[in-house]
């Protein structure tokens, strides 16, 4: 077991969730409760990372942030290092790749709050913010938690983008999934197997929890 790689994986998962969740809650709530022109287009935009091959995202990120490009050169001066091949670059890639995993479950959860409940809350004199905190939020929290867990689990499983944008730098960008790949090339099947089993257990647990939570959303609706 490559503990350093596990640490990088968990770190990446936590940072992705921490950065995406607040924005995701806001975006999911907006998409669920408001009608506006271009909404289907926006929903499609949110869903793109689901079907986009990871190499496409990796390609665009590498080209955009390469020190040979003006944006990349500026970032390098500001950050002191290139965005690619750094943990920060991984977080950027991971955040983009996980947008649908955060926004969609939250949007469904807020959509499941009946319109009459929201209207009743408004009639009681609650401001939008109070409505959100005391009525919609508590009803939608299984969906929010699902989003967090799914995003975390998905980040643990990222491979293509991480390899392209991060390289395989030990302690910085070598996540557990990359470490498995690395050990296989060293014909170290035992260690690769231990790490693969670990990721499998984590993935199954995450899905089991989201399944239980999903039933709770259904019951409340």
């Amino acid at each position, binding site marked *: 077991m490559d503990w350093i790689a596990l640490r990088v994986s968990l770190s990446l998962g*936590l940072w992705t969730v921490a950065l995406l969740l607040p924005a995701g809650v806001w975006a999911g709530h907006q998409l669920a409760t408001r009608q506006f022109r271009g909404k289907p287009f926006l929903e499609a935009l949110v869903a793109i990372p689901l079907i986009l091959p990871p190499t496409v995202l990796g390609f665009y990120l590498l080209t955009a942030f390469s020190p040979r490009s003006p944006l990349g050169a500026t970032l390098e001066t500001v950050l002191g290092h*290139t965005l690619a091949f750094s943990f920060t670059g991984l977080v950027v890639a991971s955040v983009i790749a996980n947008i649908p995993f955060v926004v969609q479950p939250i949007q469904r959860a807020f959509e499941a709050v009946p319109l009459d409940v929201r209207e009743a809350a408004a009639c009681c004199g609650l401001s939008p913010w109070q409505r959100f905190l005391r009525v919609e939020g508590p009803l939608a929290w299984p969906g929010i938690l699902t989003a967090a867990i799914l995003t975390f689990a998905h980040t643990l499983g990222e491979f293509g983008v991480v390899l392209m944008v991060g390289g395989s730098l030990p302690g910085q960008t070598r996540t557990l999934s990359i470490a498995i790949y690395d050990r296989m090339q060293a014909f170290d099947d035992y260690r690769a197997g231990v790490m693969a089993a670990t990721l499998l257990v984590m993935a199954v647990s995450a899905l089991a929890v989201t399944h239980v939570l999903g039933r709770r959303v259904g019951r409340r609706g």
Partner: protein
Amino acid sequence: MTIVRRWAFVWAVAFLALARLLGLAHAQKSPIVAAASDLNFALAEIAEQFARDDGQRVELVFGSSGTLTRQIRDGAPFEMFLSADETFADELTKAGLTRDRGTLYAIGRIVLFAPTGSPLNPREGLDGLARLLANGRVTRFAIANPEHAPYGRAAEAALRKRGLWNELQPHLVLGENVSQAAQFATTGNAVGGIIADSLALAPNLQNRGTYALIPDSEHAPLRQRMVLLKRAGPVVERFYAYLQQAKARAILERYGFSLPK
């Protein structure tokens, strides 16, 4: 406190504790050295020896020479690069990313490899492969990708010289680097492949099959050049020097490399 707030609080505390535990400082203490995949085992051994003799560690990242060159040009924080040829090292020198032209550190060889149970007998050399092809018994044959792996380029040269390249096309499996090619070559689905001698000699591959050297007259020599990159620090400078000294050279020789004088 409402039940939601209590759970949110618990969750937030757990989250922060875990984040703190993981530490947010990802400053790399050991310098990183990039090396061609044929050095997967040999360089790991040399680095271990260096850590014992020098007291400092270097971290190793392996890949095909072409991919690593691309990464270095894209800003990867390597301090030293051991290429499997000279052209990729020279490319970096021309781009102004190295201290100097670098040093020739080894000359590599390719081998014909067959996993246990394969109908291919490496002792018969490429003639044996030709015979299998004629009898339609070749399923898959693995080499490294000639576009960015020098060992793949050498494999292509040897196969072309023997007149097998075109016939072998539909059967070829290309590894992203020569280590992956070796991986493919040892699976049951391939009759074998052409991989690096240094990989075939590795302990981890000993019981997986048989192999035989392909004469170096069949391809351009695999002259392997290493370079110090612009950001190289003192530890890597010592590692660079260490690679040219007796202990490291002995390890390279054990892994089948010829050494320049």
